[in-house]
């Protein structure tokens, strides 16, 4: 299959690597490049270390952090695991109560479930119908023994953006650490961890036009904010994450971060305009429901359910437009999205959900093709359904 035959609207799943990033990465691989081990005490090693530390500064600048507070990881899933398990263990002598939401990414919910199996108590706070956390309910859920809350910045399925400033302020008031899964937010929206009350923040490069397999965890430099390591073997990354550093990938995330910072406003305006164009083009279809906030969410994600339509058939009918029927991580399970079910969608509507992910390289032409395919698919599939199916699905 020729990738050029497809219309890619799945930028929330992953993004293509920027050509300049790919070129920089290639320069760190071969005999003429910075292939040395950054831990080696010779000129080639030190040159590689210089690349690593420069990238650390580039990434830190993107989120307003100090470079020393950035820990390299393999991606957001590892960062989430490190932050949640590591902080929970570090503070377990003070208490074992943790708080999160059922609409978090599986990297968070599964990690909390694993801790619950080890004796921690987890409170799951249901979202409001727009996917946002009820701040009053959140504060009420905090207890004397609560040690950690984990709330994602931008929801990967709905684009709902939590009020991290307000959530973090409540956490600080109650001496609770706040971990933020910011995989969908970093490089897209302005984040300043020195100004915002964030203690731990997970991110990954491949969501902002960097390579897969590299991410980072921000750990605030405070005595009460430490994480116990999950891995052992060499004391790299200030003892938090051992292993030889992948210089080419780190070089890639650094440059991708710098480019994202330079283009942030331009990208935001571009995808906002395309989202408006997309929604304007399909909104007249009857029986559509936006999953997540209609306004005020991250504009790169538009998640829509359609009454009287089977999601799998809709996905196939939309081709060559590449979209998601749920998060990419569970798209093959055949189950309807647990995030949409948590928002109160019934099984039929959750199954019919399509997530359009708009990105830097999306064009008006891409959106127009998506509109045409979506409208045709919905109309055709409804036309061919037995009347009862449409009635029951929309009930």
């Amino acid at each position, binding site marked *: 299959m020729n990738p050029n035959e497809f219309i890619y609207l799945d930028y929330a799943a992953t993004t293509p690597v920027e050509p300049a990033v790919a070129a920089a990465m290639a320069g760190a691989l071969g005999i003429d490049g910075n292939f040395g081990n950054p831990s080696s005490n010779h000129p080639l090693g030190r040159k590689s270390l210089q690349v690593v530390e420069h990238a650390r500064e580039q990434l830190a600048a993107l989120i307003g952090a100090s470079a020393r507070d950035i820990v390299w990881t393999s991606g957001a899933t590892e960062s989430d695991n490190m932050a949640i398990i590591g902080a929970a263990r570090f503070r377990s002598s003070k208490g074992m109560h943790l708080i999160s939401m059922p609409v978090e990414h599986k990297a968070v919910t599964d990690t909390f479930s694993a801790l619950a199996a080890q004796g921690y108590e987890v409170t799951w706070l249901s979202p409001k119908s727009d996917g946002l956390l009820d701040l009053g309910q959140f504060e009420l859920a905090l207890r004397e023994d609560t040690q950690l809350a984990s709330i994602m910045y931008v929801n990967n399925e709905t684009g709902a953006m939590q009020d991290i400033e307000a959530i973090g302020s409540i956490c600080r008031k109650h001496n609770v650490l706040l971990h933020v899964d910011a995989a969908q937010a970093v490089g897209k929206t302005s984040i300043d961890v020195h100004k915002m009350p964030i203690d731990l923040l997970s991110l990954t490069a491949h969501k902002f036009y960097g390579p897969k397999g590299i991410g980072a965890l921000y750990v605030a430099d405070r005595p009460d904010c430490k994480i116990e390591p999950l891995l052992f073997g060499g004391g790299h990354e200030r003892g938090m994450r051992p292993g030889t550093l992948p210089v080419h990938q780190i070089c890639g995330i650094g440059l991708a971060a710098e480019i994202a910072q330079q283009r942030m406003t331009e990208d935001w305006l571009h995808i906002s305009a395309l989202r408006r164009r997309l929604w304007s083009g399909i909104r007249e279809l009857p029986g559509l429901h936006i999953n997540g906030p209609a306004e005020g969410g991250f504009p790169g994600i538009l998640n829509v359910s359609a009454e009287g339509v*089977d999601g*799998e*058939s809709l996905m*196939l009918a939309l081709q060559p437009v590449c979209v998601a029927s749920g998060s990419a991580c569970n798209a093959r399970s055949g189950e309807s999205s647990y995030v949409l079910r948590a928002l109160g969608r019934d*099984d039929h509507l959750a199954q019919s959900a399509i997530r359009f992910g708009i990105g830097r390289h999306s064009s008006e032409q891409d959106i127009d093709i998506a509109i045409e395919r979506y409208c045709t698919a919905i109309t055709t599939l409804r036309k061919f359904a*037995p009347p009862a199916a449409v009635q029951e699905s929309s009930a």
Partner: protein
Amino acid sequence: MTDYDDPYSALTRELFAELSHAGDLSRNYPLSALAGVDESAAGAKLQLALGLREATVAEMRFRAFGCPHLLAAAEWLCATYEGHNINDLVEFRAVSVMRALDIPVQKTGRMLLLEDCITVCKRHLS
């Protein structure tokens, strides 16, 4: 089938893209039957309409709510059995369309809707 295989065969894609037998019968027939069945677990629904001239299936139409395999299988069924004797249709078994379209075994329950619908049609005709 692995995760990286296309879940739909070429024939499934072809039939799904051109559902020429989806809809209602185009005219009145001396003998006709309309039957609907559903699979409550997955929410799939199928409706078959048969128009007969004596013992021949003159026209066959379907309506379906469900996955691409169900829609493509219904299209295949209609295209295959139009012009055949009704007894041939009654002998239809889901395994034949599953083989023809390379439908994954996990979809067997959904494919049995075709057999069930034909059984109900036959009951209406007798």
